[in-house]
């Protein structure tokens, strides 16, 4: 059987997505809490605690209050965490411990439908978390509308990219503890150096170059501009940079998963 070329996803990926929605709905009260409380904690600690020391931050030549500076970054971090953790720890548990994928493979679903459903679900979780957080940040007056409405579709694009990257790791790790590696080498550096808590310009030149290679940097730049109501054509480059990650890692995730599970 020829299983190598092409993406070969059918609409049935929605069934896998629906299964995850159904499980999520069972625990939604608990799942809603982190995105609800996290921004409050960050704003309290960084915004009010730290901003006394920091004051205003320079962004594109303007002085921006520190709370306003980090608010869009908090959304971006939530997009990354929710999608990446879903397709790493979440998918790995379903695949490896619960054998959920094996059970699905005995139905009309093919592996491509399953993996696509998982990745789209990861992106969906990014959207859910973003929506909740955005409500809180909006209450603090930290996001401008109507431009801010674009953040939700952006969260899906970003979630899809990070979920695809996460799924590639899930396809190759031998054991669940090994996720510490991509988190330590990839996710945490982005969390710290993606233009999130301080402007990139404060870094040495070489570090800035490295930082611009990271997808989160582009997402933060994009969401910050949108959140401040500063739509301009140059933002499309950042969007395309994120799209490239999806275009590369989504097919790679399918390929690596086939290699792992089809025996």
């Amino acid at each position, binding site marked *: *059987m020829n299983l190598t070329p092409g993406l*070969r996803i059918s609409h049935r990926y929605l069934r896998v997505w629906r*299964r995850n929605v159904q499980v999520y709905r069972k625990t939604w009260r608990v799942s809603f809490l982190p995105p609800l409380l996290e921004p409050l904690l960050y704003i309290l600690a960084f915004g009010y605690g730290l901003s006394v020391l920091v004051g205003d931050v320079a962004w594109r030549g303007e002085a921006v209050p520190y709370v306003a500076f980090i608010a869009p970054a908090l959304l971006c971090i939530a997009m990354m965490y929710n999608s990446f953790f879903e397709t790493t720890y979440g998918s790995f548990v379903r695949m490896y411990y*619960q054998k959920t994928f094996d059970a699905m493979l005995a*139905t009309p*679903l093919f592996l491509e439908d399953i993996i696509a459903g998982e990745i789209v679900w990861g992106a969906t979780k990014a959207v859910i978390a973003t929506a909740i957080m955005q409500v809180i940040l909006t209450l603090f007056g930290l996001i401008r509308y109507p431009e801010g409405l674009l953040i939700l579709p952006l969260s899906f694009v970003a979630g899809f990219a990070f979920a695809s990257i996460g799924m590639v790791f899930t396809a190759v790790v031998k054991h669940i503890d090994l996720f510490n590696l991509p988190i330590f080498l990839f996710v945490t550096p982005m969390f710290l150096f993606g233009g999130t808590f301080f402007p990139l310009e404060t870094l040495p030149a070489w570090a800035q170059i490295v930082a611009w290679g990271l997808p989160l940097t582009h997402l933060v730049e994009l969401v910050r501009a949108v959140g401040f109501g500063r739509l301009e054509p140059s933002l499309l480059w950042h969007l395309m940079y994120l799209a490239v990650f999806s275009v590369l890692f989504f097919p790679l995730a399918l390929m690596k998963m086939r290699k792992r599970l089809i*025996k």
Partner: protein
Amino acid sequence: MEYVVEAENLRKTFGAFTAVDGITFRARRGECFGILGPNGAGKTSTIRMIYGFSPLSGGSLLVLGEDVTRRRLLRKVKYRIGVCQQDNNLDPELSVLQNLEVYASYFDIAAPKAAERALALLRFIALENRRDTPIPELSGGLMRRLVLARALINEPDLLILDEPTTGLDPQSRHQLWERLEGLRARGISILLTTHYMEEASRLCDRLIIMDHGRILVEGKPQELIREHAGKDIIEVGEPGEELRAFVRDRGLRHDDLGHRILIYCDERDRLYREVSEHYCRDGCILRTATLEDVFLKLTGRELRE
């Protein structure tokens, strides 16, 4: 369509290891067809190719008349088969009823119809009062019954069971057998792998015994017993040299296991009286030959991994 499975020269290799080494068999519609063999014989590899989990390494395979090496046809076939895999891979994040309903959605069964079938199946496996129970609270036997119910959610033309009773206690095993006999009576085609000979004799119309990826024999359980083990067996514990000489002189078919000798015979009473009167030091019994005797005779008595 006379056959539900037609395998010809079917092969499965994993790198240098050959799991299924060119086997040919056909399972008829409406029958329960068994694939027997010790661990590592190639049973599960065979059955996984049949339900589309593993690609073929060689040969040809028709399931429900369709060539399953073609993806489009395989998808069609997957709608019409029910699979009970070896692991209890129920969805632990869903309740008993939800497990059936969500599984039904994978077959494009609309929600009202899925709920109706799920409840009917829960009655069939006598689990209707546990519909909201979380999966981890079920016993092994109940889980197994639910896996069977789940495999029936699409009203399959072919039910595939991979070692359905492994690890169950005798009560649960008999419960499951009764359900399977009920299904067989309704005319559903069943493909079963097992290494329990009692299970195979009771359920299978025809079977193959495999070892090292090849088919050793094929036939009806009773015919195989008659052909390979005879009617009866005399088992003698701690046999002496005199018995061994007796068996050799008379040219009796036998297996010498050191501490035990099995003599295959058709003229039961006369031979048994003779053996038990003259050569029986540590107990000897006369019993009917079973499929297990055939199995051990053909696949040997060494331990498998």
